[in-house]
């Protein structure tokens, strides 16, 4: 075996043995030396394994911190339920609008009985087109229902993630709350004010707004 390929540790041991025992050495002593060498090698391997495990643990800790910083608790508690509520509101609004359109078409159709047959035929033709167009509401309702189901599945998965993280997320939440409290109350920016249409429970009615203008609260 070329000298370059011998481990420095082993080479040093061989040199010491030569110094102490010359070229002749007993079999019992060889066994002791080999056992000692094997112990040292095992220790080196263990150390390398420990180092790799430590690096892996550091990596997992960093990833967990990054995921916790994304605030999956906020996604679970606020954004996903809010998205589902907005979609439900869309279904309700389109259903109400469709029923209003249908009521208007039915009113037009009822007039058909009292007019000239040619006009009556034209009115029936038009109301048929309106009825056909209104079938969109069933399809959009079903499609939105599928999206709401998908959101609920995602919400369940995020909940599992939040439960698995536990204390890490609590720490980040406390830190964020503390930073907000330290910053003190601030006037909302225009961006904060632009939230689009509100769900019925959160919205001010026109009467509420009129009351504000007439000096009420």
């Amino acid at each position: 075996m070329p000298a370059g390929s011998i481990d420095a540790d082993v080479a040093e041991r061989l040199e010491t043995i030569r110094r102490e025992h010359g070229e002749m050495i007993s079999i019992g002593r060889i066994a002791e030396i080999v056992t000692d060498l094997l112990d040292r090698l095992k220790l080196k391997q263990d150390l390398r394994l420990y180092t790799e495990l430590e690096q892996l643990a550091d990596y997992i800790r960093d990833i967990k911190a990054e995921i916790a910083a994304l605030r999956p608790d906020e996604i679970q508690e606020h954004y996903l339920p809010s998205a589902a509520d907005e979609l439900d509101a869309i279904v309700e609004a389109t259903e109400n609008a469709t029923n209003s359109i249908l009521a208007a078409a039915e009113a037009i159709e009822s007039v058909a009985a009292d007019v000239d047959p040619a006009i009556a035929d034209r009115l029936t033709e038009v109301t048929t087109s309106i009825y056909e167009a209104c079938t969109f509401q069933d399809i959009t309702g079903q499609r939105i229902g599928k999206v709401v189901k998908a959101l609920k599945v995602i919400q369940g998965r995020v909940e599992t993630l939040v439960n698995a993280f536990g204390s890490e997320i609590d720490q980040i939440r406390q830190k964020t709350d503390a930073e907000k409290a330290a910053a003190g109350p601030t006037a909302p920016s225009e961006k904060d004010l632009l939230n689009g249409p509100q769900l019925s429970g959160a919205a001010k009615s026109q009467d509420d707004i009129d009351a504000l203008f007439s000096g009420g609260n």
Partner: protein
Amino acid sequence: MAVDKGMHVLIVDDYKTMLRILRNLLKQLGFDNIDEATDGSQALQMLRAAGTYGLVISDWNMEPMTGLQLLREVRADAKLKATPFIMVTAESKSENVIAAKEAGVSNYIVKPFNAATLKSKMVSVLGEF
């Protein structure tokens, strides 16, 4: 034999708006005796209680009993099994159509549909009117 437009038609859908649209389109085609159910089990009760429906027009995706389950119950019932049954549904995959055919559906309409399609499928099931 001419189709009796006085026949009782049962329309089944869990969307009230769709029931309203179907009712209006059927009335325009001259069918005035229309009853409504919002799922398969309610429809089955009505069919068994009345026993006089000349046509069932049903959605598929409903709870607790689907349109396909309703169809199978109808075809398995000695008194109801000959009732014409049209499925009107957004389920448009070929396996859906095959399953409905195997269960004995008379015809199949995919939503969204128009009045001409509804009429042509009714004609194919009931005869000219």
